[in-house]
């Protein structure tokens, strides 16, 4: 499946896993390892989907999400948020900020792939 995904994740091993999964499915994956300047990158790259980690060094995933949503050019870009903290509060905050899908680590590869496919097709 074609599509361009921007992955923003600070854990290199997790990023590697996601890159492998989506790349095998035919998608193009660009990745960033921290949140600083992530929103600008989204504007430039114009991905079909943003996969965003909640806990990022330098700048929280929620801030990045807010910046993406705040800009008219990227306001409707689908965003999938990942978190390892697994707390209800984070999910609520993310949904309030306009996240499209919220996934808790660890995830199953099938679930991840299905979500990405669905969001990319929107």
């Amino acid at each position, binding site marked *: 499946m074609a599509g361009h995904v921007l992955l923003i994740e600070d*854990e290199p091993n997790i990023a590697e896993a996601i890159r492998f999964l989506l790349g095998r499915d035919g998608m193009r994956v660009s990745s960033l390892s921290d949140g600083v300047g992530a929103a600008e990158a989204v504007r430039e790259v114009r991905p079909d989907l943003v996969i965003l980690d909640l806990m990022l060094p330098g700048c929280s995933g929620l801030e990045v999400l807010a910046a993406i949503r705040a800009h008219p050019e990227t306001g409707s870009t689908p965003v999938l948020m990942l978190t*390892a903290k697994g*707390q209800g509060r984070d999910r609520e905050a993310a949904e309030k900020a306009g996240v499209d899908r919220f996934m808790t680590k660890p995830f199953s590869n099938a679930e991840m792939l299905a979500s990405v496919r669905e969001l990319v097709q929107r």
Partner: protein
Amino acid sequence: MPFNLLVLACLSYVVLLFIVAFVAERRAALGRIGWLRSPVVYTLSLSIYCTAWTFYGAVGYAARSGLEFVTIYLGPTIVFVGWWLLLRKLVRIGRQQRVTSIADLVSSRFGKSNLLGVVVTALAVVAATPYIALQLQSVTLSFGVFASGTPEGWALPDRDATAIWVAGGLALFTILFGTRNLDAKEQHHGVVLAIAVEAVVKLVALLAVGIFVVWGLGGGPAAVFARIDASAIGEWQVQPGRWTGLIFVSAAAVICLPRMFQVMVVEDGDERHMALASWAFPLYLLLMSLFIVPIAVVGLERMPAGANPDMFVLTLPLAEGQGALAMLAFLGGFSSATSMVIVESIALATMVSNHVVMPLWLRLRPKAAISGDVRRIVLLSRRLAIVGVLTLGYLYYRMSGGSAALASIGLIAFVGMAQVLPVLVGGLYWRGATKAGAVAGLLCGFAVWAFTLYLPSFGPDAALSAATFEQGLGGIGWLRPQGLFGVEAMDPLLHALFWSLSLNTAAFCLFSLLTFPGPVERMQGAAFVNVFDAESAGSLGWSRGRAEPEALLVMAQRILGDENALALFASEARAQGKEGFLPDATPDFVAGLERRLAGSVGAATAHAMISQIVGRATVSVEDLMAVANETAQIMEYSARLEAQQEELTRTATQLREANEKLQQLSVQKDAFLSQISHELRTPMTSIRAFSEILTEGDLPPEIVANYGRIIHEEAIRLTRLLDDLLDLSVLENGSVQLNVGVANIQQLIDRALAAAGQSRPERNFLIVRDLPAENIFVRTDPDRLVQVFINLVSNARKYCDAKEPELRIKVRQRAGRVSVDFIDNGSGIPKQNQAIIFEKFARLTDQTRAGGAGLGLAICREVMANLGGAINYLPGQGGAAFRVTLPLRLDRKAA
């Protein structure tokens, strides 16, 4: 006339007095006081001024010294006619202060000083002893007169035995009616009425003898006057100096004598009665002295030469065969003597018991003041004091041999008690009089009186040696008892009077001016001197009040506390422009003070207390103090309540703080769990994703190998995290097992460097050490210390961002502690983060690169706490710098 008849008459008379006293006591006990406290009874009771000395001795005095005896009546007459000036004030104060004796009055005036009470009591006892002896002597003499005059030849029993019987009987009567019960006001209605009856008896007796002498023997007034003119008495010249002195001393005596004070102030204390007494008592004295000169003249004429003129009153009727009249005269003299002794011993017993015995007893047995048997002790001490006073009188009578003329003994006592006069008058009219002045004056006067008059009265070589008389005390010429300071050839009585009172007054004034009165003294001084002012203000309220600022201050201090009261008064004084002094008791200030006090003790109490000071001072100072003390107790109680309230508030605050802390802890726990969740889930995510990928198979071998390595790494990471968490938990709750042993710091650092070398081994790290300085042996848990060192070294290796990284390790030993510093040359830790680096998960940088879970420094901190040491960040060292300190010897308890 048969002697036994005389004894019978005497006993009957005494029984009559018993009945009178008993009836009066019964009436008083039933509350039917009525005429018991009338001006007439009051005036008659004053007649105890006329003792046996006056009754018998005045005639003798007139026979020896002519009209001079009149001076003894003139003094009291002047005092009573001028009662408005002094006596009224004395009586008013006596009532207000509930004075029980002259000693009590003086003591009370000068700040309730018991020392003064003791001094006045001693003076009174010493002065009264010869006076009482005089009464015993006169009764004994009169018995003797009858005995020698009886035709049946009844021999008088031993004179001393007679005196003992008389003294014993008087003691019995006095104890029965003087100490029947304990009355706070020290009033004895039975005794007073018996004295009034005796007053009538002695006046009637003397008048009867006088009438018999003038009309029966002298042939009418005209003939008697002619005889007086012809006699030696008619030639007597008035000696102005002696007259002035004697009038003065008798005036002083009527005020100061304990028995006069007793009937004048203590027993009655009603000023209205004084209006009658002011003319009736001088009239009584006039009647008593009316026939003295005729009796003396006729007696000198008719009686054989050598007959004792002191006994003319008795011997004239006897010689003329007037047995009944002689009996009456005898009873008159008996009355004079007994009434004096009874009242005097009551007064002295009160003084001795109140000022000497009770203070001593209370000091010896302080607990007794609380229990209820004080009354019994007081009564007992009074009874013993009465017996003691009479015994002293009897002993003096035995010692002196009953030889001296009656009048001279009486005058010695008068001068003795007159020593109280300066202090008394000064205390009533001079606010500046102080306790020190009073003590000095009294002691000085007492000493001079004893030296110049009292001791010489025993005769040469009795109390004072003849040498002292002639050459002065210790051979000093100007210290002769009858020629003090070179004043020669002066009448000994006047000499003593002059010097004792002059030196007394001088010492009193001098010491009063030199000393400053205490608060109670000031308050009492104001109460005494301004006794009428305070009363006249009455219920008109504060606007007309004449409150003494001292009294207000003392009261305010009791209630508000010293500091508050003084501050209040000082600010008022400033407002009045009297800084440094007490403020005037202006109506506004008093009203303000009342409001202030009301805040502490309630409005009603405050008003009552202020009105006691501003208005009628019918409550004694002690009462006021007692109220104030009670209030202080209440305040103490409310202060305790307040303290409890504060305690509760504090507890509530503590609970709230504890609750906040718990909530904080709960938040921290949530954050901690969230952190742990993150730290666990992150490696799990990688492991799960890659293991799913691997299970799908169909991958090139190098990718399989790579992904397998990642899974392995993440598994190790998980394990390390769990290890750290468990370690931290054990360290934090103090249940860690330490393996204490002796180790060398240098070797421990070696071990740490070797272990930490695995951390970023690719970097070439320069380690700077001072090996000799590291050669320190410590007793600690070496493995735990190495764990800390490893942590610090690997942190440096991980985070030092210098191009040529370098780590300096400095070891120092100081005051039983060792410090090890780890300083690198990187950019260090930003200031705002220095405070949190020892917190859990306080990782500041990219976690993957660091490779830890963020628990390292937290564990270090806990380890050092367990080793009795500490780990701190050292700011300003150029790079990241940590200092580990630990004790040379680990104390087990601290561990």
